[in-house]
């Protein structure tokens, strides 16, 4: 960025480096942090309890029925997949475009991506009627089934984003191993195992740089396909509302938008709870991310119009009923709130420079994220309620869908789990890549390699 002070001498550079180290080392949580972790653990425990009930009594404990056989587990899965797309967006796209303000953002987004994709995989197992038979997927997998494609891409994406995170993390783990004072034994042991023999050698840095470059290219098609394939789970069926050729692009656009919002939210929270972080996550970063979010929202708006305006113009028989329910019927309040709060208001607010200040942009990001969650709900559930044949000769309970408390708590636990993974990462690892920051701020690589892991 323009106002970056490039160091004038090596001494100054080392000083800067030391200051970064000081600022960005992982730190013990204060009261707020501990409280936060406790709350998350409680939510997860409740969800786990309910999941055990579900294992015992079957999916009966959910609000699902023969009409709405996919519910919030699936919409939550789509949400997770959407959020996970952000890793590729920030890291790969900004990396390849060589944007010079990306360094403090990459790791945050990668962590969000990894935890989201992990819980996407978990929540899909939760949705299965027979999780005990998960191995059948590998024993009898049918390559014709979009679910098999999805399993393959989810696993691939998870591996790639883990690698992406891990490679650039190596120097920092080694740094924690060598430099963190007063840490318990297990923690040091963990660092030393995870640092994988990192010795801060220039050759090692070279390898990291090569690997990250390969990964940045590789992750783009995989990330696009993960969300496209997820959209195909719906688009390969005949149901009104899902039978759309627009779905892949629509899902990807939506995912980019919520992913960017997730990164903004993460940035805001980090900046709030860690002193000095505002020097790295500056107002400028928020401004840039705000602009990016507006751009992505416009793309999403474009696909949304395509998705609803064209069928709404034709009002084809079976589709009409579904659309009417969304536009003016039972789901209209949710539908319009999602459009207004999850898209229009953020676009308008973020168009103004004042709107892109940390606080308003944080609020807008939260709007977008919540809106995105309910948007997924609207994609999955109303369609299930409008099959081609009338809802007759079924029990009254099968004509509606209301998630049960158990279902909510399991879903909540998955969200809490993802947040916990991110939180723990922040607790034990530097969430802003120190060496990348240093590089971005013009410190010479040789200086970094030599002095990064020096004792203070």
């Amino acid at each position, binding site marked *: 960025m323009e106002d970056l002070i490039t160091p004038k001498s090596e001494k100054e550079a080392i000083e800067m480096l030391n200051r970064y180290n000081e600022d960005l080392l992982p730190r013990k949580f204060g009261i707020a942090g501990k409280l936060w972790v406790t709350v998350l653990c409680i939510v997860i425990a409740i969800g786990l309890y309910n999941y055990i009930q579900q294992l015992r009594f079957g999916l009966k404990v959910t609000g699902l029925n023969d009409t709405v056989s996919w519910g919030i587990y699936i919409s939550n899965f789509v949400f997770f997949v959407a959020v996970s797309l952000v890793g590729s967006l920030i890291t790969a796209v900004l990396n390849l475009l060589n944007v010079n303000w990306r360094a403090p953002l990459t790791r945050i987004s990668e962590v969000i991506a990894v935890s989201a994709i992990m819980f996407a995989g978990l929540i899909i197992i939760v949705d299965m009627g027979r999780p005990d038979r998960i191995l059948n997927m590998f024993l009898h997998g049918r390559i014709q089934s979009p679910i098999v494609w999805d399993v393959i891409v989810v696993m691939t994406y998870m591996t790639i984003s883990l690698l992406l995170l891990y490679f650039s993390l190596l120097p920092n783990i080694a740094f924690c191993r060598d430099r963190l004072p007063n840490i318990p034994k297990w923690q040091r042991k963990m660092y030393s195992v995870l640092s994988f023999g990192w010795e801060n050698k220039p050759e090692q840095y070279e390898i990291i740089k090569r690997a990250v470059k390969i990964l940045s290219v590789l992750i783009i098609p995989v990330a696009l396909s993960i969300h496209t394939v997820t959209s195909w789970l719906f688009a390969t069926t005949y149901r009104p509302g899902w039978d759309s050729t627009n779905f892949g692009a629509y899902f990807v656009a939506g995912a980019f938008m919520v992913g960017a919002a997730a990164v903004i939210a993460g940035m805001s929270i980090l900046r709030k709870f860690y002193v000095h972080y505002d020097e790295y996550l500056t107002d400028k970063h928020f401004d840039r991310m705000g602009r990016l979010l507006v751009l992505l929202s416009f793309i999403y708006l474009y696909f949304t119009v395509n998705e609803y305006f064209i069928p709404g113009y034709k009002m084809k028989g079976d589709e009409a009923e579904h659309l009417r329910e969304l536009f003016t019927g039972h789901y209209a309040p949710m539908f319009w709130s999602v459009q207004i709060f999850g898209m229009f208001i953020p676009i308008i607010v973020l168009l103004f420079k004042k709107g892109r200040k940390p606080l308003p942009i944080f609020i807008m990001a939260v709007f977008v994220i919540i809106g995105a969650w309910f948007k997924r709900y609207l994609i999955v559930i109303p369609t299930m309620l409008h099959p081609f044949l009338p809802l*007759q000769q079924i029990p009254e309970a099968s004509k509606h869908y209301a998630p049960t408390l158990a279902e909510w708590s399991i879903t909540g636990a998955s969200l809490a789990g993802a947040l916990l993974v991110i939180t723990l990462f922040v607790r034990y690892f530097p969430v802003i890549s120190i060496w990348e920051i240093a590089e971005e701020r013009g410190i010479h690589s040789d200086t970094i390699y030599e002095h990064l892991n020096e004792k203070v």
Partner: protein
Amino acid sequence: MSQKSDDKEKLEGDHSGRRDFLKFGFLAAGLTVVGGGLQKVFSDNKDSAKVESGNKVKVLTTDGKLVEVDSSHLKAHECCGASPTDSREGIPGKKYVMVIDLSRCKNALKCQKACQKHHLLPEQDKWLKVFKMQDSPEASPYWMPKPCLHCDKPPCVKVCPVDATFKRSDGLVLIDNERCIGCRFCMAACPYSTRTFNWEEPQQPANILEMSYSPETSVPRKKGTVEKCDFCPDMLKQGNLPHCVSACPNGVYYFGDANEDTVCNGDETVRFKQLLRDKAGYRYMEGLGTEPSVYYLPAANRLFPFEDAEEVKEK
């Protein structure tokens, strides 16, 4: 009965050591001879007389009540269910089709009752539904029975990730519930709302639970898996019509083999293609391209005036 216990003896013999095996073998052979002889003696007098076994079992009736009956009265699925592997092959040379004559249906629901009874289905799971349909506001409503349409290009089979639901050479689409992982993708993919899911552990009589599972009988039913109308392959194997076809008092259902070009509704046997030609047969939502094995004859020149059974019930 005695035959059965002999088989058991033999089986146990197989599992034990060689000497034990011989010992058991002799014993079993002896028992078989005696048992067979006894059976002959009995069968001379009481041909297929049913002996009350005294074993009471709980059965779910069609209206969802649990009743106790003697286990010898449960003859459903006594035979004919092939193993999950074997039932992937269709009955050789057959291609089953169904023709449903909408002009004869008066929503008597005898078909559904027979189906529920023979497949031990609880009230809320209906494999065969009779829909009240109305194609346009001016047209008069009609009743449309709908089993599984056993499509030749089945969307449900397309999407199944583990090969649990499959298409057979005789046209049947069946489910192997020992393989199904319960992802319910097939339910989402089916445009005809055909499939039901075992959301909880199904209630079943003890003697059914003891049987080994077969996709051809769809019992014992299993928690966390999908189910649907199976065209009663156990009946077809014996050359009998599916339960719904033989239960209908109005001859609505014709069932047969397209390779024989013949369908039969229990009373009447007619040429399949000619029937479709003469009565303007069609398939439901042909435009989807799923190519169902079930055809409909339009509800023209009705045998019965349309009566809204639901409204009648309310009165």
